[in-house]
């Protein structure tokens, strides 16, 4: 392939990913003019994974609970992250989330309203106050659609259904990216002064998952290959409530909003078991705790017929349920023949979110590679060992914007153009076409299925040294087989060919998750080791950072940044700021046993 004839574009700022983080970054980068901006997604515009988010976006606007403040949001987020979060990232986040949510209203999002006519906020696990701005149970769609229409009204070039397979460097700094159009398989080369990585997570590593097909970790794997640091990879969130039955829908998310609106969890003995595991927060405990509790109940033989727990909201009025949770009502009725206004339903943990990812600075989202910025689920720093519900939608707004600003400023300050090494481009073309030379090679779908089985068995909700080591061996063996993946047919919209690269990325990230999990010899947040069941203060001082090297993954422990006294003082309080007077009583709507 001749690079001269390859479709080539040049931009000041190139945003990889048209989910919430990517679109917010693009809107910001283009907001002052004078900077050329493009955004790329591997799906159609408006279909990105963000569209699935249901429950809401967390921001301490305080429309219902006036004492809420950024300090309380900070306190809750650090606590839920078990203090291995980057405190500065959390501080920026908690302070800026309210403005970002209001901005969406300004751009056309229509949130549910309070009786005073303001943005409605709902209770969610681990949040001290009612904090999640929402639109029924389709908040992500509202966020994405609003940003989508905002973006197309601006001077932003949008590439749809283009998959990027490689990031390109100019010496030690970023210089562009390469990819192909899914529709006909032709290659495209992007030169860029700055790149915002907003490619989302990698929930497709697990068999039972709430994630869309896009969540194959492409961005994290590509950044790792060119030398960016990845952090906290062992921290995978399992959402406590995925659908269980029928099997066709296993894993599909049941929003935490069901519990936020008053839904209660029972075991097969009709016991509200969460009262035992977390007497104070009960159903609204953090996800790591609720997921583990359901898992333990099932292990103890108190599971539902298909191995989960019962979730019941039928004590609420049918009209209320249909208004507050219309998507859930419909999802169960059409896919499960269950009327949730009348009967309880089965739920069990499902892989949901990646706390780990590309290490990014708090203020600028800068990664360890000059010119490469990371925001959203692909980035790491905000959530620590466990993400609070609603914090991701706020995350992608706050840090999408910040990455957009930083990328714009960085590109503006660069005097010279970037140059790209043609031989790298040629080699990448050859690599991407390779699978066609192996029409009888390994089937990528089959490798993917086996990988999911391995990760689900060895590196999921409960882990141990022995299990992880066996899992690692299997992943390495699959990586070996993965080198022989093949495809047939043409380059025209060929999902079998596309899957090869998705699976390569997942094979790589699976190894990092297991290596990280082996290093963290304790239990913390989403990471539960049956052989080290306790949270160990010594371990809480470290994050684990992964670096690519020719002879394999290098894992290093780096110290968790130490908080300045003002912030440490907030975290040290026995009750959340603003809740002092309410200690003992509950500000969240009273719940009946």
């Amino acid at each position, binding site marked *: 392939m001749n690079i001269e004839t390859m479709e080539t574009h040049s931009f000041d700022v190139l945003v990889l990913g048209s989910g919430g983080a990517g679109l917010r970054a693009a809107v910001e980068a283009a907001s002052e003019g004078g900077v050329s901006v493009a955004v790329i997604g591997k799906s159609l515009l408006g279909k990105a994974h963000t569209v699935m988010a249901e429950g809401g976006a967390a921001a301490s606007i305080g429309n219902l609970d006036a004492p809420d403040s950024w300090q309380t949001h900070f306190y809750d987020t650090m606590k839920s992250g078990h203090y291995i979060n980057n405190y500065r990232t959390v501080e920026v986040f908690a302070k800026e989330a309210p403005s970002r949510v209001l901005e969406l209203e300004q751009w056309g999002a229509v949130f549910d309203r309070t009786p005073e006519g303001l943005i409605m906020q709902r209770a969610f696990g681990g949040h001290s106050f009612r904090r999640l701005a929402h639109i029924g149970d389709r908040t992500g769609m509202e966020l994405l659609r609003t940003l989508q229409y*905002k973006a197309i009204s601006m001077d932003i070039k949008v590439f749809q259904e283009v998959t990027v397979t490689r990031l390109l460097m100019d010496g030690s700094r970023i210089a562009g990216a390469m990819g192909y159009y899914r529709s006909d398989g032709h290659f495209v080369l992007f030169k860029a002064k700055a790149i915002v990585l907003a490619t989302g997570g990698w929930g497709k590593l697990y068999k039972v998952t709430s994630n869309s097909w896009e969540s194959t970790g492409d961005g994290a794997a590509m950044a790792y290959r060119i030398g960016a640091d990845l952090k906290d990879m062992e921290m995978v969130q399992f959402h406590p409530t995925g659908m269980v039955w029928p099997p066709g829908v296993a894993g599909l998310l049941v929003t935490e909003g069901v519990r936020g609106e008053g839904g209660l969890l029972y075991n097969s003995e009709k016991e509200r078991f969460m009262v035992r595991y977390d007497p104070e927060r009960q159903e609204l405990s953090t996800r790591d705790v609720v997921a583990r509790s359901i898992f333990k109940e099932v292990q103890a033989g108190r599971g539902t017929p298909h191995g989960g727990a019962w979730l019941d909201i039928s004590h609420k009025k049918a009209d209320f349920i249909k208004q507050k949770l219309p998507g859930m009502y419909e999802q169960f009725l059409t896919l499960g023949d269950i009327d949730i206004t009348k009967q309880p339903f089965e739920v069990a943990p499902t892989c949901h979110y990646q706390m780990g990812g590309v290490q990014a600075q708090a203020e600028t989202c800068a990664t360890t590679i000059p010119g490469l910025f990371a925001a959203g689920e692909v980035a790491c720093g905000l959530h620590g060992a466990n993400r609070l519900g609603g914090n991701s939608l706020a995350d992608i707004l706050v840090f999408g914007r910040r990455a957009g600003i930083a990328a714009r400023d960085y590109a503006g300050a660069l005097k010279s153009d970037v140059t790209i090494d043609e031989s790298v481009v040629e080699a990448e073309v050859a690599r991407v076409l390779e699978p066609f030379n192996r029409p009888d090679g390994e089937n990528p779908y089959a490798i993917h299925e086996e990988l999911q089985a391995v990760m689900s068995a060895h590196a999921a909700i409960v882990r141990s040294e022995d299990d992880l080591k066996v899992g690692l061996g299997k992943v390495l063996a699959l990586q070996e087989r993965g080198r022989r993946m093949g495809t047939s047919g043409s380059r025209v919209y060929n999902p079998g060919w596309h899957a090869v690269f998705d699976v390569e990325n997942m094979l790589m990230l699976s190894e990092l998750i297991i290596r990280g999990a082996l290093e963290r010899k304790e239990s913390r947040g989403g990471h539960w080791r049956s052989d080290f069941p306790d949270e160990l203060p010594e371990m809480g001082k470290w994050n684990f950072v992964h670096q690519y090297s020719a002879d394999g993954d290098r894992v290093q422990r780096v110290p968790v940044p130490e908080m300045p006294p003002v912030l440490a003082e907030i975290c040290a309080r026995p009750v959340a700021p603003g809740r002092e007077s309410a200690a003992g009583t509950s500000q969240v709507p009273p719940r009946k046993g």
Partner: protein
Amino acid sequence: MAEEFVLSIFRGDAEGGEEVEYHVPRIEGMVVLDAVHHVQAHDAQDLAVRWNCKAAHCGSCSAEINGMPKLMCKTRLDEYQGETVHIQPMRTFPIIKDLVTDVSWNYEVAKKIPAFNPGVAAPFHMQQWDVDRIQEFHHCIECFLCQDVCHVLRDHHEQDEYYGPRFMVKMAEFEMHPMDRADRIPQIKNEGGIGLCNVTKCCTTVCPQHIHITDNAIIPLKERVADRYYDPIRNFFRKLGGKDENAKQETPT
């Protein structure tokens, strides 16, 4: 119950093609998309299909199932016990391959919709009943099934004259937003081509989000157009006052 389902899936591209039969083992609660994925994993790796969420949220997996425009992820296979399930791409849009069509025209139309234009700065004061009506329109997942079924586009190919039901819903969403200050009526009438809709309601029938596209979006917009252009009394007052006070009827509380 049968142990397998029989699918007949269109395979082909712009040059042509035909349906090919596949057999898929039955799993309880399976939807059409699951079966298509099964075929992809086992029989035809290069079978082209779009999907993202498998939860009726993203609007990617639109197709015509036994002739009905539907979401594959929301269509249970048990509905077709004992029948062969024929799966075809949406017919109104040019085919790329198999079940994937070129829907880019919709994105071109989307660009013509003027952005939301509030007269004031957030936070807005709006009651739930102020927004109930427009929130219905926000349920749209842009699956383009309504565009697929609308005869103005499907049979008469008037893509250059009519934006189609999806974008009438989008226009209604902004037009009826209590805070929007843009005047959208001329565009709805002229470039938007609302007059071409003859209220057959086929779009409403296929909308997987149960949006009352015709009753709640198109008809009220048609009324606003009629008020503006064909109501002699209002026209008289507009000439007198220079401005149509009733053009935006909802005032925020």
